[in-house]
């Protein structure tokens, strides 16, 4: 029973959560469907709350007819309640009048929603001979912002494009409150009328200019233009200089030296305001620092100092008595305003001895009556204490690092150099080549350029083979020399790399190259059987010149292309994996069956590392890089998939 109740409760709640609107029936109907321009039309608005549970709160109704609108506060419409309103509409232009009603209300989860309803009626041209149909307002000027009781210049240009002489009335104002002027326009004539008008309607209103035809004492609306305005009482902030406070006696500033200053502004106006200001001086020998001031909301009748406490005046001893500073303020009350105030400053006529530290600047202490600057090298002063930074200059950092002056910590410098720059690392495959046993960047760079076919070479290298050849623009290549990279002694070209390399050294070099995605370590002299895993370790001296670049390709097939070896070496076990080596022909068919017959693709036995497994081509760079010159279609496709992640 309890479960059923919870189920039913959820059933009731969940749909409401999905749609947090209130179920309202909102209709607009007019009492007439066809009218003449001067007829009255009654618009009936009906809103019924059919929701079983929720109230439509804080509802506001807006009716739009053409560019005209009417707004009404409706308030809360509770469950089962009906709201009705009759709105009298008048003065229409001939044609179809579309009505759109928007009910804006607060729904279930405190979100605002709009329910919309539509209606329409037809307005006929009046059956009057020589009715001036082609008179319109071609240009007009009305204020954007209106303060009630204030006068504004308005204008409208009326054009008679018809062939009938027109007696007209031009109006400026609201629907019910306006000023008007009678004019006559001959066919083809244009007149511009200017008036100075006072508006008084508070709140949101439609401010219009309208032109009517005056026929037999009746007026017929011909054209109107208008804009939505918010009319309000103009309320002003009234700002004045109030007082100065300094950290010196009698709120003066020192004759010679720095003084702290607070400038108080008073607001005697009708509205609170935020203020920004800048304090300036024309006096020689007086320096103002941190002169940009900000005052948070100054309420009516309140006096406030600027928020910042770092305004300083430095005097050179040549000024004394009273001098005037200039304070330019920018603020907003009913409008954006600027004002310039005079700030009188009193300077001591003699050097006053200090009694305590607080009489001095924050960077000074009072020693024997004299404010003395606190010495603080390589740091900053807080609470009159010198706080030393970890570092402020590169020479304070260990070798190969420098001082970052934002965080005052020694940071490591990037140690790698770009050899191939194809663009932003974010989009590219970044290879870092660690040159083990290379002491010279010229030699290392030359070797890399050969191995990667970045310069003309008679040997096949990385960018000489597809799919790398066509996607060279997706690679950045970096290099770092590693002259001290250790290998273990007594090795030869058959020594497995795991027994020849002192592992972990790559990390020391790779950590200097944050952009690198793949690391290739090439060894100039050390002899071992090259290998790959997360990175690759290539003994160049164990390869003939013809094979060095192809060695990089074979190992990159592992580390970049995630390809398996395609040869047999039973001592390494049976390890089919990757897109190019599987244990059954059925699996092989699933992986590359669609490519069989294409450029030598088939099912060949022998890979990773037994004869039982199947590979896709007879030979490839993943089998014998000595004789192969390509990866083969299946491996190329797998590498292309990975290259698709780069731009």
């Amino acid at each position, binding site marked *: 029973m309890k479960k059923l109740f919870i189920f039913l409760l959820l059933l009731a709640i969940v749909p409401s959560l999905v749609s947090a609107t209130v179920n309202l029936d909102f209709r607009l109907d007019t009492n007439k469907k066809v009218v003449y321009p001067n007829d009255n039309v009654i618009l009936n608005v009906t809103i019924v709350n059919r929701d079983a549970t929720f109230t439509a709160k804080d509802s506001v109704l807006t009716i739009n007819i053409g560019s005209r609108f009417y707004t009404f506060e409706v308030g809360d419409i509770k469950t089962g309640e009906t709201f009705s309103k009759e709105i009298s509409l008048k003065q229409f232009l001939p044609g179809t009048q579309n009505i759109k009603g928007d009910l804006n209300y607060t729904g*279930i989860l405190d979100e605002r929603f709009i329910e919309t309803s539509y209606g329409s009626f037809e307005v006929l041209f009046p059956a009057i001979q020589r009715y001036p149909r082609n008179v319109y307002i071609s240009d007009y000027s009305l204020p954007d912002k209106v303060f009630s009781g204030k006068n504004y210049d308005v204008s409208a240009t009326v054009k008679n494009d018809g062939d009938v002489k027109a007696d007209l009335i031009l109006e400026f104002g609201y629907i019910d409150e306006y000023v008007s002027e009678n004019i006559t326009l001959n066919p083809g004539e244009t007149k511009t009328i200017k008036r100075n008008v006072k508006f008084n309607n508070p709140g949101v209103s439609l401010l219009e200019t309208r032109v009517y035809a005056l026929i037999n004492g009746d007026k017929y609306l011909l054209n109107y233009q208008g804009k939505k305005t918010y009319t309000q009482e103009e309320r002003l902030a009234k700002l004045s200089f109030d007082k100065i406070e300094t950290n010196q006696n009698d709120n003066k500033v020192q004759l010679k030296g720095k003084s702290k200053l607070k400038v108080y502004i008073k607001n005697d106006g009708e509205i609170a305001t935020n203020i920004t200001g800048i304090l300036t001086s024309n006096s020689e020998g007086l320096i103002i620092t941190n002169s940009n001031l900000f005052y948070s909301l100054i309420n009516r009748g309140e006096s406030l100092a600027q928020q910042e406490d770092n305004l300083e005046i430095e005097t050179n001893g040549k000024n004394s008595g009273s001098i005037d500073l200039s304070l330019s303020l920018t603020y907003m009350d009913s409008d954006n305003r600027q004002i310039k105030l005079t700030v009188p400053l009193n300077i001591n006529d003699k050097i006053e001895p200090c009694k305590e530290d607080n009489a001095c600047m924050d960077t000074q202490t009072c020693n024997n009556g004299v404010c003395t600057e606190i010495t603080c090298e390589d740091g900053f002063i807080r609470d009159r204490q010198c706080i030393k930074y970890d570092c402020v200059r590169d020479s304070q950092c260990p070798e190969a690092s420098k001082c970052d002056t934002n965080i005052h910590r020694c940071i490591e410098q990037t140690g790698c150099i770009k050899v191939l720059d194809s663009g932003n690392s974010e989009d590219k495959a970044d290879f870092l080549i660690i040159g083990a046993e290379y002491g010279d960047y010229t030699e290392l760079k030359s070797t890399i350029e050969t191995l990667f076919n970045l310069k003309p070479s008679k040997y096949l290298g990385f960018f000489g083979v597809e799919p790398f050849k066509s996607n060279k623009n997706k690679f950045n290549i970096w290099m770092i020399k590693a002259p001290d990279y250790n290998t273990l002694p007594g090795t030869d070209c058959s020594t497995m790399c795991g027994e020849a390399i002192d592992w972990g050294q790559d990390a020391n070099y790779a950590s200097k190259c944050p*952009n690198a995605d793949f690391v290739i370590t090439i060894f100039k002299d050390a002899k071992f059987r090259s290998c790959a895993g997360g990175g690759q370790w290539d003994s160049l001296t164990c390869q003939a010149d013809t094979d060095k670049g192809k060695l990089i390709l074979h190992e990159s097939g592992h580390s970049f292309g995630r390809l398996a070896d395609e040869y047999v070496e039973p001592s*390494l076990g049976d390890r089919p994996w990757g897109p190019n080596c599987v244990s059954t022909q059925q699996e092989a068919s699933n992986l590359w069956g669609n490519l069989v017959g294409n450029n030598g693709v088939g099912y060949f036995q022998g890979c990773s590392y037994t004869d039982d497994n199947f590979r896709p081509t007879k030979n490839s760079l993943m089998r014998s890089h000595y004789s192969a010159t390509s990866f083969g279609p299946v491996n190329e496709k797998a590498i292309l998939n990975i290259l698709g992640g780069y731009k």
Partner: protein
Amino acid sequence: MRIRVILSAVFIVMFALTLVSANEEKSLAISFKLGYDHGSVTNLGTNIIETQNYINTPVNQGNYSLKIFSFLNEELYQTYFDFDLQILSVPPKEWFDDEGNQIYIPNETGTGKLGLEKTAKVIFTPYFKTAKYVLVYKDSKEILNINLSSYAVCNQNKVCDNQETKDTCSEDCSTIVKSHSSSFWQKIMNFFKGIFGMN
């Protein structure tokens, strides 16, 4: 005339330098060198390093994860990783003929030595000025804790201390004003008020 040419050249060089420097957006990263030895993970060194334009985006797969935490124990960053222990060796040239036929196959059979038991890995993360420590996990189990507090410039203790300034640690060195808006829970409360007719 010559002076004009020299001035133009200087201008062009200056302009080009401006373009170059504008293109190289520098930021800071932390590099973690992690050592692996027979299953144990150790911290081989940590550094702040300057990067240009790029820092590796976090990886979302791997048996290991690295999380950076602030002084307030908030998780600032997480990435996954693995140690690459499998090694694939290149075959000797003598094993093949010129057609790619494998003409020699070593006799031995077995599981072979393909894996490493000792290696190291570098992980780069963005630099966080409030980073206090890093935890490294293996399969959700914490295995390493690295202290980063010496790199932090803001210890989030609400006191402007040590080398903190308004620039490096505004949360400790200036007043924080938090704005309050209608919360999710307030909305839920309103919802239930609606259900029980308390509107």
